[in-house]
């Protein structure tokens, strides 16, 4: 997903727009930006500073600065949960765990080897099970007995799940087992950082209450989830943009800004 979030100088959120990131949409950050401007009733030249983040950060031609999603997520989560020490983001592509101190990343780990332990893992298996990915959380909460599912490989887990179904296992027990597999994988990644509370979970997968419960079981502590867990990266980017701009004004200089023209990205790097 491509998200745009605009704030004013006090950090008040003016607009939030989420658009899909397809192969074509990746080039179209400008369209999502346009919608965000319309929502806030603003003209582009009133925007003082733009920070782009995420895998597509290089494809935003109107950005003034590019900052990785790790730094942005940590900053966004910290603005919502000032006591955060461990931030975990599970998105469609990857899972990342961050140790956070006063809103700054001090250490991090990202899943390295494959899609297991990410949102994609759940999406692939939801198709095999014939359920909607957004219903998986509620389904799993009905479970009384988790079915063990391998956490190592999305493809094999899919076969495993089909086999369990044919053996007559209940859907909710299988889904609960899947959540357990994702949670154990991600918590294993986070353990390399020495987990400390408060723990905050973000990313699309954080909307799944079954995952949140499984994470709490594995972590043996409460897991906090923001109201909109999809936008913490964009929120952090906007706050960093505000800070960078204010710092440069305080120094008596104008932050260097890109010529404000919304254009399509024409390059891939």
């Amino acid at each position, binding site marked *: 997903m491509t998200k745009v979030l605009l704030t004013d100088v006090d950090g008040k959120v003016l607009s939030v727009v989420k658009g899909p990131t397809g192969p074509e949409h990746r080039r179209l950050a400008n369209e999502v930006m346009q919608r965000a401007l319309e929502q806030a009733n603003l003209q582009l030249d009133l925007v003082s500073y733009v920070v782009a983040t995420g895998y597509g950060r290089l494809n935003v031609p109107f950005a003034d600065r590019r900052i990785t999603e790790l*730094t942005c997520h940590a900053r966004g989560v910290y603005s919502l949960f000032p006591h955060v020490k461990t931030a975990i983001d599970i998105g469609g592509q990857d899972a990342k765990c961050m140790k956070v101190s006063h809103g*700054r990343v001090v*250490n*991090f780990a*990202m899943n390295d080897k494959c899609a297991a332990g990410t949102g994609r893992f759940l999406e692939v298996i939801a198709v095999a099970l014939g359920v909607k990915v957004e219903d998986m959380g509620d389904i799993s909460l009905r479970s009384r007995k988790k079915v063990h599912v391998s956490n190592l490989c999305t493809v094999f887990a899919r076969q495993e799940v089909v086999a369990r179904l044919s053996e007559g296992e209940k859907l909710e027990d299988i889904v609960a087992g899947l959540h357990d597999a994702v949670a154990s994988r991600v918590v294993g990644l986070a353990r390399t950082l020495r987990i400390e509370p408060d723990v905050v979970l973000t990313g699309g997968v954080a909307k799944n209450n079954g995952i949140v419960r499984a994470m709490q079981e594995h972590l043996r502590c409460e897991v906090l989830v923001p109201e909109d867990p999809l936008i913490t990266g964009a929120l952090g980017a906007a706050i960093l943009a505000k800070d960078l701009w204010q710092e440069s004004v305080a120094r008596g200089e104008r932050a260097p800004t890109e010529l404000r023209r919304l254009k399509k990205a024409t390059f891939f790097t």
Partner: protein
Amino acid sequence: MPNDSRGLAKAKQVYQERSRRARQLRAEGSRVIGYPCVYVPVEMLSALGLVPYRTYGDIREPVTEADRALPTSFCPFMRSCFDCALKAKDDFLDGMVVAHSCDPQEKTARLWESYVGYPYFHFMDVPGTVRPEAVEYFGGQLSDLKATLEAFTGQELTVERLRSAIQFHNEQRALVKELYELTKPAPPLVSGTEMLQVVKALMSLPVAEGNDLLKEVIGEVQGRTTGGPELKPVRLLVWSSTLDDVAIMEILESGANVVMDEGCGGMRAYRGEVKLTDEPMDGLARHYMDDITCARTFRQGADGETTKEYSQDLEKRFGYLKDVVEEWSINAAILLLVRYCDPFAFEVPSLRDYFDAVGIPSIYIEYDYAEGALAPLRTRVEAFFETIG
């Protein structure tokens, strides 16, 4: 006075066309011996007039042929090396000397030998520890290598020849150290990318030609007034299994000055020197066991003691890095491993503890040995720089 030395440009050219000189020498009658590991005593090859040629994989070459023998879950570096061999990219080699640096290399060597077929092929064992018995055992391995090399060349590896070769290679070690001195200023006079090009060039040339190149590079870099690296906020140490392509180094140098590469594309082959002992093979054995700091070799704080202090153990294993950190004013370290490199990955927790103890922020990153898969590496590297910036 303008500096008209072209050492760096030459090194870059050799880096880009690594096998060109070796092919030329072979056409003129020399014999070229490939070796994939820092534990192969190149002095013994040079002493017999053989050209030692360090083989690497190629991150720009998609692995295809190696699939017929090695699954995708195997060491990507060995897969790539083997793939290049199967594609006859190193078809100018008259032979190979392979060392038991790790199990993937040992097992790949078997396949290498049987699938490619070289006129000369020698596999040497390398002990996993540095105890006196291990040094003695390694000495025996060098004697075996001597015997097969003599049989292959039909020449005797005399003490005089070996001493002379050791002197040339010691000179190369000293020159590389001299060049690394020039990464000490801020900004450094020579970049990590340039160092990588120089080191890979050295490993593709006869030792005397390498030394001439180094002298030219050092002269050029010492006289540098423009064209050197820009000052970056981070002075980085890279600890790597192998970092052998400038595309990776350039990602690191987008936000840092890489002032030391503790890896096979950097300092690893050049630390210490071979002592000229009465029997030169003894000095060789001791050097390779004592001075090469590769994660595949086990070191401990105190041999034979029943209780050991963890800090003492770390000091024994990684103490040399503390000196490097101080002398090169390093303020961050990246532990950069090719994916699935278990011997190095098992060393990571202790090494990170050591860097914590000496106050150096560090990050551990695995990368796929493939040029097309460097975006995740870029994100991790940039995020790390943001945490310390």
